[in-house]
């Protein structure tokens, strides 16, 4: 069957990774189609929306309308209520991701990208030399799009890469199952993000409170898939909200999974690049995925552009994307992965004694690394695992 449409590149998924890839390629003059199964870009937002200002500005000029709150300090709260405070003059942001992503989509469209929403990717068209297009479905209509290259930015479910033979299935220990409310009418410090740890409240994960301005906050909770049998993130979140914000109004609910895995060993195939959550590139310790997604989207677009210019989108040509990813964030992500494996086994009493040990330290001098280093000193058996943190990653 002949394709109905043609583009040089088709990007599947209009999250941060897919949007930045499409925008970058369109600005290079590439003929790009971006598809997403959502009816509106960015909706629903399955994300706590936290990001560093400086890091974000590496990728896109910041616009004030994207910002819900500016974060100066972070608290890590132990089950006893004791906490460690990090920083006083941080420069973090809680984004309004809907506005942010709509803006990126508008910029991509202005640069020439064709964007199709409410459009579902149903399979890859494979030829003798790899990926040659996509099957799409929109309102019951089936279409085919031919292309030289597909960029899979389809999020945690990561189905597109599977169709090309890449095993993307996450182990239970490598996924956080999460739920989040947008709470309104609550009393929160609008310059502070809180993380609540504890084996009973959030086994193998944490609860978070990220202010959104005007007495609102993203209040969510994630637990390790390994600990999720017999309970659910939503149940635990409801318990957390009842305990901490009984007066809060639940304005909106989202569920979601966050990959806390090593990134895909091979995030490419002939005619295919895999980016963002789909390539398991989120930070495995924090679950933060916006910056890794933007980095991967940009790197993939650069490699795609160069490979198209050279007329070679073979596996070998596209493997430059993996090299670039490993050089930029891949290696440190692997170190974070090892730290996650260790920290997820810390007992509650270690978190509490850590909070006490650090309570007189100036928050300005505290880093996440120092907090966990202290925790590990208090739980010496884990130092054996922590040694891997200091070995170069493969």
């Amino acid at each position: 069957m002949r394709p109905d449409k043609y583009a040089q590149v088709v990007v599947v998924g209009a999250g941060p990774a897919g949007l930045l890839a499409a925008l970058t390629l369109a600005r290079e003059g590439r003929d790009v189609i971006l598809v997403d199964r959502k009816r509106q870009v960015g909706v629903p937002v399955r994300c706590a929306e936290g990001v560093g200002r400086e890091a974000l500005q590496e990728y896109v000029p910041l616009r004030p309308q994207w910002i819900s709150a500016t974060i100066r300090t972070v608290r890590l709260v132990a089950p006893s209520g004791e906490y460690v405070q990090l920083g006083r003059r941080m420069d973090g942001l809680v984004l309004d991701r809907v506005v942010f992503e709509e803006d990126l989509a508008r910029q991509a469209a202005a640069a020439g990208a064709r964007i199709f929403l409410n459009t579902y990717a149903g399979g890859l068209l494979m030829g003798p030399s790899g990926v040659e297009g996509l099957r799409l479905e929109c309102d019951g209509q089936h279409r085919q799009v031919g292309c030289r290259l597909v960029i899979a930015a389809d999020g945690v479910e990561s189905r597109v890469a599977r169709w090309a033979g890449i095993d993307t299935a996450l182990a239970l220990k490598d996924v956080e199952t999460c739920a989040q409310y947008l709470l309104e009418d609550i009393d929160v410090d609008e310059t502070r993000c809180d993380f609540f740890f504890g084996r009973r409240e959030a086994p193998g994960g944490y609860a978070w409170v990220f202010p959104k301005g005007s007495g609102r906050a993203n209040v969510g909770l994630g637990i390790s898939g390994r600990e999720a049998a017999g309970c659910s993130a939503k149940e635990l979140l409801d318990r957390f909200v009842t305990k901490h914000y009984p007066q809060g109004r639940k304005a909106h609910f989202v569920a979601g999974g966050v990959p806390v895995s090593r990134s895909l060993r091979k995030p490419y195939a002939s005619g295919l690049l895999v980016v963002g959550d789909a390539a398991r590139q989120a930070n495995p310790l924090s679950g933060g995925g916006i910056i890794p997604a933007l980095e991967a989207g940009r790197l993939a677009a650069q490699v795609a552009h160069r490979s198209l210019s050279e007329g070679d989108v073979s596996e070998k040509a596209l493997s430059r994307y993996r090299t670039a990813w490993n050089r930029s964030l891949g290696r440190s992500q692997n170190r974070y992965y090892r730290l996650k494996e260790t920290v997820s086994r810390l007992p509650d009493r270690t978190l509490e004694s850590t909070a006490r040990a650090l309570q007189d330290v100036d928050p300005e001098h505290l880093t996440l690394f120092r907090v966990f280093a202290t925790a590990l000193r208090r739980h010496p058996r884990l130092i054996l695992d922590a040694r891997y943190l200091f070995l170069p990653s493969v």
Partner: protein
Amino acid sequence: MIVIRDDICDHCGTCVSVCPRDAIFFGCEDIRVLEDRCDRCRRCLIVCPVQAVEDAS
């Protein structure tokens, strides 16, 4: 058989991310388990954040 309750499901795709058999069809409007592919490992049921996945056998 494993079933996904559409009245509870939030269409977040977490179940799809852990399925080792690619046995969950995730279409425009519907999401369901393909019985002939499913080997009933129950990972989808364990990770669902809202308990929309049930073992109906």
